[in-house]
């Protein structure tokens, strides 16, 4: 009796389970179809959102690129403005000084020979007197001894020679100043690179001389190629490049000497070499045996406004402008090799004739 009630109960439970499972199966089928539709829908939404994001990403990238270009253009423009302002001021000043010095020097240089002739004539006259009046009166004899006439005769030659050298040196400097400023030579023309280098060195001459800190001075070696032809270039701007590189080399050597601790045999040296490259281009190398360039700033060396010099001493424009002058104005190349602690070589490669 109990068993049959139990069986009935179990049967009822089983029937219920079957009903529930059937219902669940029905619902699963419906749910599955709807789920498939829903997943397609969401996929579509997400795809569109991703497409939108990609689009705006590209737009942003382009905008960023445009801004970077604009910034770089602005920097270049600013650099050019500063430079042209500076060069024009410097050029006017240098030209003015050169002109003002040139006139008085001409008087001196032009009259030196004349003055020498006068003196020689007077000395000749005195000698004639001495021949014809071998026994001068006591007063004259005393004066001859007092002015040491023999030495005066002998030394006046040296004196005039030295004055001539001095005057020549002044006119040489004036010529260099004019060559450097090249106010009259901003045009593209044939020029001798060696002359440009020499005029720049002349201007920098004082910085090569011995100082209390650097009693040896800086040794300059000129290793100019003999067959180097004149090249078509902008001589003024090119001199400025030489100037910038040489000043940096001198600064590096000064810094090293000031720092001290070098062996006694060390001689601070700058070497300028020129040659005609196999590709028929002019190759100029300016090397120093200074501190070299630290690796961490190598990438930034030609960046505008990058400088390692104390505030007020460097604009950070020198090498940037030089780079621009060489690459853009002359279609040449400017690069450097440097080993920290051993020195730096700046190399310029310039075409002889630009089409």
């Amino acid at each position, binding site marked *: 009796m109990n068993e049959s009630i139990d069986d009935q109960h179990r049967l009822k439970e089983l029937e*219920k389970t079957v*009903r*529930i499972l*059937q*219902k*669940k199966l029905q*619902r699963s089928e419906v*749910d599955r179809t*709807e*789920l498939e539709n*829903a997943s*397609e*829908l*969401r996929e*579509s*939404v*997400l795809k*569109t*959102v991703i497409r*939108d994001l990609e689009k705006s990403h590209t737009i942003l990238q382009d905008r960023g690129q445009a801004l970077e270009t604009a910034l770089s253009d602005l920097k270049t423009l600013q650099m050019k403005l500063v430079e042209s302002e500076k060069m024009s001021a410097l050029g006017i000043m240098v030209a003015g000084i050169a002109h003002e010095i040139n006139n008085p020097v001409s008087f001196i240089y032009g009259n030196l020979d004349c003055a020498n002739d006068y003196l020689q004539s007077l000395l000749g006259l005195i000698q004639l007197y001495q021949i014809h009046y071998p026994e001068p009166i006591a007063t004259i004899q005393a004066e001859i001894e007092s002015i040491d006439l023999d030495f005066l005769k002998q030394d006046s030659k040296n004196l005039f020679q030295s004055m001539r050298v001095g005057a020549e040196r002044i006119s040489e400097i004036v010529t260099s100043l004019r060559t450097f400023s090249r106010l009259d030579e901003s045009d593209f023309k044939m020029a001798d690179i060696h002359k440009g280098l020499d005029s720049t060195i002349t201007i920098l001459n004082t910085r090569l001389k011995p100082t209390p800190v650097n009693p040896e001075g800086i040794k300059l070696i000129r290793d100019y190629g003999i067959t180097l032809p004149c090249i078509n270039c902008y001589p003024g701007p090119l001199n400025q490049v030489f100037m910038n590189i040489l000043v940096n080399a001198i600064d590096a050597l000064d810094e090293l000497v000031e720092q001290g601790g070098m062996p006694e045999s060390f001689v601070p040296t700058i070497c300028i070499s020129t040659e005609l490259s196999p590709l028929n281009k002019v190759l100029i190398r300016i090397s120093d045996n200074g501190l070299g360039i630290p690796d961490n700033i190598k990438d930034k060396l030609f960046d505008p406004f990058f400088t390692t010099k104390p505030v007020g001493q460097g604009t950070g424009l020198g090498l940037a402008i030089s780079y621009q002058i060489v690459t853009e104005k002359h279609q040449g190349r400017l690069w450097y090799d440097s080993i920290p602690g051993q020195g730096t070589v700046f190399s310029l490669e310039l075409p002889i004739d630009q089409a």
Partner: protein
Amino acid sequence: MLKVVVGHSEDPESQYAVEEVLDHCRKDLCGLKPQAGILFAAIDFDYSLILDHINQAFPGIDLIGCTTDGEMSSILGFQQDSLALMLFSSDTVKISAGVGLGAKENPTLAAQQAVHQATGSDASPKVCIALPASYISDGSTTSGGEILKGLELALGNHVPILGGTAGDQYRFKSTVQFFRTEVLTNSIPILLFSGDIQVSYGTACGWTPIGQKGIVTRSKGTALYEIDGKPALEFYQRYLGDRPPTAETPLAVYDGQSDLYYMRVPNTYDADSGQINFLGDIPQQSIIQLTDINRDEIVSAAEQSFTTALARYPGTASPEAVLLFSCCCRRWLLGSRAKEEYQLVRNALSSSVPICGFYTYGEFAPLEPEGTTHYHQETFVTLLLGTNSPLEKP
């Protein structure tokens, strides 16, 4: 004293299901007579038979209820195709039911009818539970917002309204409401609680906006005509291609210039004019955005809703009953994880507290403790009920 019990059956056969549900309830009532009840039924049951059985078991009971998109209770947890019943018995809490008809055509009048019937001589209800129709037999919908306005008008702003609109298992055709022994459509059944009743509630959503924002340039009520000066459908088509807007792709509608937003679910559309009809109103000039979901965030919103309600609960004792109203879209998008919503609430409560709830087509709840009620979508609403003189536990 308030005694709340639940019954729940997953038997698809109406007769067996209602018997099982009543068995559960009788066992826990310990001879007490319930005066009111809430019934949540899946779509394929024989409703008349079920209501008759309940009325036979507890003659004259003030019962309301509706069809759903899923049922929850502390007996079987989350279920679909099931029958769930919550019964209230109390000598200190007064509970009465009312119903209004013609919810679509005249929501204000229907709401007034329901409130009037339920209030009777007692004019100081403390909370209203409403289970109005959403889809009516011809496939059109009522306006949740208008029904809410009607109820507020009849009750006054100070009575919080909680609940949800009836569902039909995601078929979006026709929903059914229950009032005592009547099976209704297009109606607003409500329960009003007064006397020694303590109430608190919490809401949370979990959706996140995605894609480009747009401005509603032309809309009226629940009809959205233009976004950014172009037909509303074009905004959707950018993301969906030729697929129509559905409940899976609700809009986030921003509240003014703030970052806060509420959800609006698209319902029907007109391919020719590009107009989309939503299940809630969308104000003109509001900023809208499509939304995306993350199931983790949706599930955790359920817990957040519950903890908010619990933190606000004013009673000196613990709550004695929990009612949950969760959006059908949550159930649908959570799929196999839908049961976690109920489970999170269950785990946070002592095991003896009865829980009952359903998946709705639109939720009613205030956002703030003393605030006015809002009509929500995609939201999880927790309602806690209790008294200051709880039943002694055996």
